[in-house]
């Protein structure tokens, strides 16, 4: 455990040094703030809770951005150190390979979590400062959004570790990372849509669709945030789906958690079998 913390600490320090933390935080804060103020303009007319609107737009942003950032940080974690020659030295220390993976994972999730919390928190703080009234359910939905965003980030950091631990060189890892991002964020949903249109509801019924949505972490995240809270789902245009969806929020969170743990376990396995 101590070893994992030491490695995580080094990963955080690296992130601070090479400005990853700063860049990610500024990017997320900048986008969140601009979405907050652009999104707040029409909300006055409908009498909406502005924070609920922010949750809808921020969670859509998160689906695109956080997986990309997570993969960018994580795809280099193992293969980069192997190529630079620093891994050989690290493993000559009393350090297990699983501890290396877990430490890097923890450090990178901490970096991502900090950036998400500060960046999105800035949006909520700006709303408060502008005098908007926010009730407790909205705060709860907002907190759930931040928490699940970090979990989504963790899932993609774990996928990035798996890519990194099983790639021969950094270029391959980067290519696979981009491909994985495209599949999970863009292609999967399009394919699913196409499948449902072609299938006309014969085999892809409710339970099958739910399973297919759980099989993609970004869909699990989307369902959780857009249907999990009634006040939010009204703005997301998902109220109907929320009523019919048979997937409970805890199951969605469980799926996200599984998407973080399974690749992490596989990454540990791949790394332990790797010849240095």
């Amino acid at each position, binding site marked *: 455990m101590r070893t994992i913390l030491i490695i995580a600490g080094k990963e955080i320090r*690296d992130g601070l040094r090479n400005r990853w933390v700063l860049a990610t935080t500024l990017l997320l804060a900048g986008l969140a703030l601009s979405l907050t103020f652009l999104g707040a303009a029409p909300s006055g007319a409908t009498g909406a809770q502005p924070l609920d609107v922010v949750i809808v737009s921020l969670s859509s942003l998160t689906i695109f951005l956080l997986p990309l950032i997570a993969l960018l940080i994580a795809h280099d974690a193992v293969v980069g150190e192997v190529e630079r020659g*620093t891994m050989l*030295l690290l493993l*000559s220390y009393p350090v297990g390979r699983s501890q290396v993976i877990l430490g890097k994972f923890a450090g990178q999730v901490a970096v991502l979590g900090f950036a998400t919390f500060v960046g999105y928190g800035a949006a909520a703080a700006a709303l408060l400062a502008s005098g908007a009234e926010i009730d407790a359910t909205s705060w709860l939905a907002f907190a759930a959004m931040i928490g699940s965003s970090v979990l989504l980030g963790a899932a993609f950091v774990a996928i990035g570790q798996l890519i990194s631990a099983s790639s021969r060189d950094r270029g391959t890892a980067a290519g696979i990372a981009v491909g994985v991002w495209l599949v999970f964020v863009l292609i999967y949903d399009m394919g699913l849509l196409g499948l449902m249109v072609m299938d006309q509801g014969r085999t892809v019924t409710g339970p099958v669709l739910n399973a297919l949505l759980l099989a993609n972490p970004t869909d699990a995240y989307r369902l959780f945030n857009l249907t999990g809270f009634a006040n939010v789902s009204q703005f997301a245009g998902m109220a109907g789906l929320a009523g019919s969806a048979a997937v409970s929020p805890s199951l969605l969170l469980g799926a996200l958690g599984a998407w973080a743990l399974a690749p992490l376990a596989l990454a540990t396995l791949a790394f332990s079998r790797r010849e*240095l």
Partner: protein
Amino acid sequence: MTATVALSGVGKRFRTVEAVRDVSFSLDEGEIVALVGHNGAGKTTLMKLMLGLIQPTAGSVRVLGEDPASGAFAARRRLGFLPESVSFNSALTGRETLAFYARLKGEPVGEALALLERVGLGAAGGRRVGTYSKGMRQRLGLAQALIGAPRVLLLDEPTTGLDPALRQSFYEILQELRGRGATILLSSHALSELEGETERVVIMNRGAMVADGSLAELRRLARLPVRVRLTAAGGLDGLAGRFADLGPLQRVNGHAVEIAVDDARKIEVVRRALADETRIEDIEVTPPSLDELYAHFLRSGETRS
């Protein structure tokens, strides 16, 4: 003497490449041993096996009484390793780098930082490793290997990139560690630079061990000829005939010949030369150089396999 590192019948195969085959030797406390061989002879593979980074496909490796690949880390705490062309995260400073490695080993950070002074990096400790020269990185690498007074030090090509003065202080540090009972294994692709620093040499060639012993023992085993150069004042006429039975003779120039003789018979050459005191004006005896010795063992290893 207790063996700190013991290899018996060790082989390692990477898919189709046999990197190391049937290597057996053991290293004792307070020994400095040189592991010599060309690039690709299996030196780094042997070190990785001793570190437990890879598993042997044959034979067994014991380091400080443990199988290094077993996943138990008691022995690794007492082990220092300097990889070939060591590299560090360039964004961290020398001090931060060393502190990180000290924490990983569970050693006090303060003591580890004192090592920076020891390798002459005290003033540069606050600078980022990215600004270091190759020699400075090598010294930082040595400093991390020395953390926690290791009982076994594995140094892969440690002196590349060090200037002669640093090389001298590097060997002084090694001698001091040896005095405290540490086992030091250092690899090199040239035998000549190790003269006077190591008492024992293990020579590797294409994955096989071709020699193991002190330099004196290896010299005796190799039975390489000693070269005696005779310079005659008045030409070489008749000179060749008197020495021809001792060994092959080579004309250097109009006034000198060189005879390659068996070590035991060099006195005989001198005796005969002195008997002819009128003509021989200079005698030069050259023992086989370490490079010749090394080349000899590489050749003999090849004919055997």
